């Protein structure tokens, strides 16, 4: 299954605003994407509660997985988003 491992780039971690932006992007993806930390259970990337409960901090490596048409593209986009510092952008 297509997979991406990426370190969270946002200064505050995957919380608050960065989590909101990530979840919104995952919900808009054409495939079902999951996210997990290490060997823990994967959660749907479009679940705000699940993503928050990962407790991922800045620098925490998270693993994204998806399958199906457009999975590679969706993962590339989401991985790039996670790697950015979403606290910094005004967009």
């Amino acid at each position, binding site marked *: 299954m297509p997979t991406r491992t990426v370190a969270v780039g946002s200064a505050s971690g995957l919380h608050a605003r960065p989590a909101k932006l990530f979840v919104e992007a995952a919900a808009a993806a054409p495939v079902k994407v999951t996210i997990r930390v290490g060997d823990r259970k994967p959660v749907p990337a479009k679940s705000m509660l699940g993503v928050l*409960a990962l407790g991922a901090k800045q620098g925490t490596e998270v693993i994204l997985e998806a399958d199906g048409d457009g999975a590679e593209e969706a993962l590339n986009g989401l991985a790039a988003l996670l790697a950015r510092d979403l606290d910094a952008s005004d967009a």
Partner: protein
Amino acid sequence: MPEVVSLSGIGVCAGIAAGPLLRIADVPALPPVGVFDSSEAEIDRAFVALGEVVADLSRRADRATDATVAEVLRAEAMMADDEALRDAVREHVADGADAVHAVDRAFGAYREMFLDAGGYLAERVADLDDLRNRAVAVLLDLPMPGVPHPGYPFVLAARDLAPADTADLDPAYVKALVTEVGGPTSHTAILARALGLPAVVACPGVLGIADGTLVLVDGAAGRVDAGIDEAAAQAATRDAAQLAAAASTLTGPGQTSDGYGIKLLANVGSAKNVPAADEVHAEGVGLFRTELLFLDRTQEPGLDEQIAAYRDVFTAMSGRRVVIRTLDAGADKPLPFLNQEGEPNPALGVRGLRIARQRPEVLATQLAAIAEARSQTGADVWVMAPMVSTLAEATTFAAAVRDAGLPKAGVMIEVPAAALRAADLLQVVDFLSIGTNDLSQYTFAADRMCGALADLLDPWQPALLQLIGICGDAGRAVDKPVGVCGEAAADPGLAPVLVGLGVTSLSMSPRALPAVRAALAGVSEEECRRLARLAVAAPDAVEARKLVL
């Protein structure tokens, strides 16, 4: 006269207010698990309730005038509108739970995960509980729990406040906030400051006070007096109003009743804060935090960008003093570009000036930018370093400041070692500035973020005052300025004590400045010295307060 009970917590927004205490509507109790015919209908009921909660939050977000409030409400709505949560509800119904219990259990699972994660997430548990309570209330056909609207002024008490509660606060009626749990970074604290409401958090026992009991809230001291009589409540309200009125008419330089001058300065993070400082006639900036420019960054801001940011503040403060602090990163303010992951104990790690040991170029660039910005403007620029412990560090820093062409070098006193050696430090620097928050933390070996140790972090602790006194004496001996720029500087009751200890300037958030100016105008310098001796000699913080106030 009724017996007055004093409760203590962590004051997170200064100010005094009195009024009847009212609690947030009780959380609906769960009935026994009901019997139902159709799982599908039960799941539908639960989803409809969650949908109503989401719709309600979205409506409030649309109505909210404050952008911060709107954003937190939207984030809460996203948490309630969650596919994984709905899946969990479906599973619980399949296991025999009715809609109410399924919702309760689904939220409960996330609650545990948030608590286990600790830190930031543990403080978000209040958000989860709020969502759960709202959904449960809808299912039980009860009003959603929230802030009471009695139609008269009151003090609001709660276990903790959720964003959805605080969004409903009308400062015309809500005079103060007190919560049983929470910390300095909880929503209650953040929103109290945004609304300028006196607030005390982590105040055990507040929910044991009966609704309608008259209470007095001192948001600077972190104290709640319950059971005061009507006259005392009125007096406190009148005093607070008079103080505010007197303070706002009193302008000009800070001074004691006999004309002894104390510079009253503002803490700022960027030029955006300067109008608020001007509004209260601040004589300058006593703490220009430069972290803001660095905080959101994965790379160090360049020389030109730094020059522009510093120039903005220097220009706005033209002709006045601006004490700029070099980068204070680390511990509670880790910066991505410094790559400080992995320190076992960041508060005792490479932070503040210590970063220059590993990354001297960061400090060099910053000093160059400050020097260039100064040369383009007319501000009286002083530069100080955070987290200095030794004479050698102070000497090296002062040399770097002067090499950059800057006229005034100082150090912050945040480490007891530096306070004890204040006289030595003043041989090589031009001024000292005491950061009382960190000095408390390191003197009492008590984490600033730890609500359970709030009593140790009380700025009235005599040991802390004694260290401040050592610095004050050192300053008097060589006639060099000694400022305070921590929370303690914003406490009007403590201001005369600090002046008596030899402090020559107080720097605070602009909102606190008028009350401090008024407090100093009411005492002579001799009286300040007497109060300082009393406070330092007191056995503990509580006694120190009693002796002085």
